[in-house]
């Protein structure tokens, strides 16, 4: 487990302009010095990170506009999000950021074994994040809160997650009833106490008078946010009384707005999840380069890890417990095997020597920057999506 450094220079075979002038094998020919190469790479990565920030900035702008226009929708719909899982995800991503930064440090001081361990831990953190996200998404899909029309708050929803000709027809009828409602008499203030006279209160059909909490967190929301549950209460719900003016969820206009919240949620967290996966792929590439070119100690244990992980995934999707019982032990076996190989107890006795050293650590540094950006975006996503609270109008 010693830390060997690559030689920083050696004579190579190709033309050195007849001066005995040697250069680092990692120096590309269109650069004059290693320093120039490094600084150019760093500039390129920071410009790219700037474009990523601007892209997510656009999404945050959509969030800001929609939330400022429909605060009650956000207050209601966010109760479907599991705050605990979101917080755990934040902690996991922060820890993976720490291990990534530590890995960069290891590469800078020629500690290659430390680098490999740190990169593996970062990969583990990223995988853990995606697993928790998958659990969250899965539970949402089960509750008919998927994106688009497969969402029970979507006007075209027919109950089984699929749309059909009847659902389309109903959607058009509902829309015809909703459309006239968007024409505002001049000077109509945005106060819920004004009866919405030109919208037939029975248009939605069925029980429009009372909210029936369907899930546990619905009850909690009703209990803590003073949501009006009867039409009389709703008529008096306004800012002065600190009540939530948003009442009748059977009303089609309101239901559509909840669907849009989930659209924003899935777009932002989904795109972020894709960035996590891309980052994990890049880290895997760096890990490969950082390991001994002759023997990659950690590749054989990956097989049980992948098999176990895939079985667990099948178990989650199909809800068959047997897959879990088989997949989890296989996965644990893979992790143990990996750990033993890394610390040198099992496996071929060889140093972990790789491409990176004090002279050339740029890829580790730059991919570390990308990973930190992924963490940064989640730092903002978490409070904005998961931690919405307060009384409207206060």
């Amino acid at each position, binding site marked *: 487990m010693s830390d060997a450094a690559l030689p920083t220079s050696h004579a190579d075979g190709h033309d050195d302009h007849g001066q005995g002038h040697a250069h680092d094998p990692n120096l590309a020919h269109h650069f004059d010095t290693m320093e120039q190469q490094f600084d150019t790479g760093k500039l390129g990565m920071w410009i790219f990170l700037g474009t990523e920030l601007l892209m997510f900035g656009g999404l945050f702008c959509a969030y800001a506009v929609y939330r400022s226009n429909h605060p009650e929708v956000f207050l209601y719909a966010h109760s479907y999000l599991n705050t605990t899982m979101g917080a755990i995800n934040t902690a996991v991503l*922060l820890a993976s950021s720490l291990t990534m930064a530590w890995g960069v440090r290891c590469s800078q001081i020629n500690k290659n074994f430390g680098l490999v361990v740190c990169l593996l831990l970062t990969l583990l953190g990223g995988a853990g994040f995606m697993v928790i996200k998958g659990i969250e998404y899965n539970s949402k899909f089960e509750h008919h809160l998927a994106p688009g029309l497969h969402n029970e708050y979507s006007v075209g929803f027919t109950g089984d997650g699929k749309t059909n000709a009847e659902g389309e027809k109903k959607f058009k009828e509902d829309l015809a009833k909703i459309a006239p409602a968007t024409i505002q008499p001049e000077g109509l203030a*945005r106060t819920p106490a004004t009866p919405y006279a030109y919208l037939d209160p029975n248009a939605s059909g069925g029980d429009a008078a009372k909210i029936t909490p369907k899930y546990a967190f619905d009850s909690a929301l009703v209990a803590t946010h003073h949501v009006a549950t009867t039409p009389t209460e*709703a008529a008096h719900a306004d800012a002065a009384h600190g009540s939530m003016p948003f009442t009748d969820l059977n009303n089609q206009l309101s239901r559509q707005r909840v669907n849009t919240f989930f659209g924003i949620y899935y777009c932002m967290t989904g795109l972020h999840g894709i960035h996590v996966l891309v980052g994990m792929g890049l880290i895997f590439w760096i890990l490969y380069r950082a390991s001994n070119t002759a023997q990659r100690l950690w590749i054989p244990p990956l097989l049980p890890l992948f098999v176990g992980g895939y079985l667990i995934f099948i178990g989650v999707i199909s809800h068959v417990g047997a897959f879990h019982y088989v997949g989890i032990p296989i996965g644990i076996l893979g992790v143990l095997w990996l750990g033993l190989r890394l610390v040198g107890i099992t496996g071929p006795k060889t140093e972990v020597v790789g491409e990176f050293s004090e002279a050339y650590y740029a890829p580790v540094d730059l991919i570390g920057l990308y990973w930190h950006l992924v963490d940064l975006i989640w730092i903002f996503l978490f409070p904005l999506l998961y*931690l919405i609270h307060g009384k409207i109008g206060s």
Partner: protein
Amino acid sequence: MRSTPSIFREQVTGAPATEIHDSHGKHHVHAVSPLILVGVFAVLMVLTIITVAVTKVDFGYQANMIVALAIACVKAFLVIAYFMHLRYDSLFYTAIVGICIVFIGVFIITTTLDTDQYQPLLAPTPVTAAP
């Protein structure tokens, strides 16, 4: 402490490659100390706990969001400055990030100001008429 990127320093341009001697151009490698890394991580975890805990207190709908965003900004600053190494790098990179943040701010603030003007025109939240 902060080094100037070589792209800004005067290059030996126009000279044939044979005259460049220090191709190893070893710049000062600054590795962040593990103490700082762990310390920043600890502060980030504490701030995360505070972010969740502060939801128990109600400052008002608008203020709640501002408080949460303020804590998020502190966390973001720590990640950018220490994990992403900007604290020790040339100010040029800080300028890039700063300019991006300024333009994101312009985008969100002007759009929000604009949409606020349309509040009176929004369809009021529907309320079923009293029976």
